[in-house]
């Protein structure tokens, strides 16, 4: 089976609210694809629809080219973690994994392997009700990986993890993607996906905002801003402005220039004999890029929240 997730023209309405409004995107194998958007953007709804849990008004979702509900042993095709707290509190972690394994015709051996992988061995025979959120996330990952699926769908798996856990989760997701799996990871905090996701699906208000690689997104957000350090601020501003650039002073010795590439700035300043000590392309963080991208949808949401 081709390890892909394909979502086409999803529309879903909850009462008067349009939760999903023509959402389409594709998740490819071998990558971690971040699924981001503000809270309420429709990430969890989309994931539930992919897993056949929620119905759609229009459109369809396919995993490996098929509808989820037609899969035999679906957990061998798609592993998912929707809500780490979805546990029977009095059942032990191992028994939670055991019934899941039995439902796929698997036995306890695979359960023990997953307990080992997620570092839950010492706690596996304790009641899941006593688990911290971080431990529940690990248990949720163990459940998602139980039947060794080529596709993973994880909703906010970083929630509640301590810094060590975040590092573990990132490296685990990277290595799972490197094995050729398709991984869709949602988060409402872009920073969590830094160094993990190589591709992004950004949604807002149930619509696709961007479907892009992380590298492209940052390059675009960085735009053509160039940071300049010079002791002759006024001269530099005059030279560059007359060449058509927009120049802003950001400090006594620093300027931000837009409208000219860095090479042209260096050439102009050299011709005019203006001294400068540093010319650097400004690189936006993923967080900045994301904020830039979703500003409109967030603002709209804030308005929409006021008027019910």
């Amino acid at each position: 089976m081709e390890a892909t997730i394909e979502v086409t023209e999803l529309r879903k309405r909850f009462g008067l609210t349009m939760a999903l409004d023509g959402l389409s995107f594709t998740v490819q194998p071998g990558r971690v694809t971040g699924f981001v958007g503000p809270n309420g953007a429709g990430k969890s709804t989309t994931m539930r629809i992919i897993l056949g849990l929620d119905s759609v008004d229009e459109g369809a979702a396919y995993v490996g080219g098929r509808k989820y509900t037609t899969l035999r042993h679906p957990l061998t095709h798609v592993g998912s973690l929707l809500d780490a707290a979805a546990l029977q509190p009095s059942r032990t972690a191992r028994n939670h994994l055991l019934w899941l394994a039995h439902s796929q015709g698997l036995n306890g051996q695979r359960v023990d392997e997953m307990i080992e992988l997620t570092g839950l061995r010492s706690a596996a025979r304790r009641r899941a009700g006593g688990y911290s959120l971080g431990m529940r996330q690990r248990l949720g990952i163990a459940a998602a990986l139980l039947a060794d699926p080529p596709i993973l769908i994880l909703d906010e798996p970083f929630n509640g993890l301590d810094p060590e856990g975040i590092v573990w989760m990132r490296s685990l997701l990277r290595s799972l993607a490197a094995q050729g799996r398709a991984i869709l990871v949602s988060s409402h905090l872009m920073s969590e996906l830094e160094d993990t996701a190589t591709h992004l699906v950004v949604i807002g208000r149930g619509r696709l905002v961007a479907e892009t690689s992380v590298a492209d997104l940052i390059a675009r957000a960085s735009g053509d801003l160039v940071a300049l350090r010079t002791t002759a601020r006024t001269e530099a501003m005059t030279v560059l402005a007359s060449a058509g650039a927009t120049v802003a002073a950001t400090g006594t010795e620093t300027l931000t220039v837009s409208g000219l590439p860095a090479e042209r700035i260096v050439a102009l300043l050299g011709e005019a004999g203006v001294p400068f000590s540093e010319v650097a392309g400004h690189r936006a963080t993923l967080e900045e890029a994301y904020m830039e991208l979703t500003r409109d949808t967030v603002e709209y949401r804030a308005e929409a929240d006021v008027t019910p």
Partner: protein
Amino acid sequence: MTSYTPTVTPGRDGFPALIRAEWTKFRTVRGWLIALAVAALIVVLVGLVSAAGSHRSCVGPHGRACPASVPGPTGPGGEPVSDSFYFAHQNLVGDGSVTVRVASLAVVKPDSPQPGDDTTHIEPWAKAGLIIKQNTRQGSAYAAIMLTGSHGVRMQYDFTHDRAGSSTARWLRLVRSGDTLTGYESADGTQWTKVGSTHLNGLPKSVPAGMFVTSPQHETVSQSVGSFSTSGFGTTAAASFDNVSRTGSWGQPGWHGSAVGDGPEMIQGPDGHGLTQSGGTFTMAGSGDIAPATGGDNTVEGALTGTFAGLIVLIVLGSMFVSTEYRRGLIRTTLAASPHRGRVLAAKALVLGGVTFVVGLVGSALAFLIVNKIRRSNGVPVQQVATGTEVRVVVGTAVVLALSAVFALAAGAVFRRGAGAVVTAIVLLVLPYILAIASLLPVGPAQWLLRITPAAGFAIQQSLQQYAQVSAWYAPPNGYFPLPPWGGLVVLAAWTAVALGLAVVLIRRRDA
């Protein structure tokens, strides 16, 4: 980049895996296993408490046992019976017949009538006619053709069998041919019509045969909220027979009158008890009945009064088996692992039904055996019933418990919350039962509740039989359900099936 190739090979697909998963789910929650044990235990404990409450110890005059602690006679089928009548008999040896005309059948006024007693009308099931009986012991096999107070001619045999003849005939004939006994009736003594016949296997060559008369207790029931009381008094009927003729070989020269089953009424009865003969007319009086015993006291299923309490525990368990999954969001994990939602509910129902049946069977069998043993050792004359009936009562109780748990499961899936499901199941299953059994409702509404609500399933516990030929208070407080045992169980099963079907429709339609 090529896609990941899984290294894990899944096992067999389908329903068995699903059942195994649901069983693993069930057995790994300790609270649910405890609830199961509690349900079984509570059935036994409530039975023990009620048995302790019905302790009977009394010593009659001169150290004799209380009359009530002596079990009554049982018929050829092992069922408790009444067998008291006045009998004018001779021994018939081999084949033969006896013919009479019932000249009159009338009520005999009691010595001291109570206010309100009806002393002018004959009891509808007063009987006068011909009988051939295995011997004169109570409960022995018989066949009889008789005229009744207001139910015409009847052919009856071995207590539980009854066949109606005409309402106008006065002439009766009873014929023995080998083991076959045949009753005939006639309006004029010349045109004879067969009413019925039966084989009484193992009938001795020489059997007492002749005329009999008897009249049952007159019972009135007064019901008030929470209790009922039956009051009754013995009645006596007098009958005269003429045109007596016989064929075959008869043992003694004349008729010998005696009371079978000398009850207090027989001994202290009014004049006319003895057999008098005037010309060709024989007159005698008797009281009692030749019929299966009725009434709800000391039934075997009295040991299972704790069923409803165990049921409540299993209702809570059954609804929680699914409602906790909704409460925790675990239902999404379940349905992601098994997208065939109908099958998920079916697997849950089978696991829950199987487990609660086994545990219910242990509970009801233990309660039945232990509590009835204790009742008997306390001097309570627990009615004897056929082994098949005992098995049906015990196993049926387990089926009721299992079906009720599955009903609660379905309700849990419909409501997706435990509280609503538990309340619904208790209101439909337990409440009607208690209202009807504890005499909190008049008989009419009580019987309707036990026909249409799932509480009808409790009918499977009824060991008593209802007989058209016996007047009794066939009402829920007296141990009689309006539906037959299996009919009641079918009503409960139908409710469970409909609830489960509704749950399947809803779980398929709703977002998880």
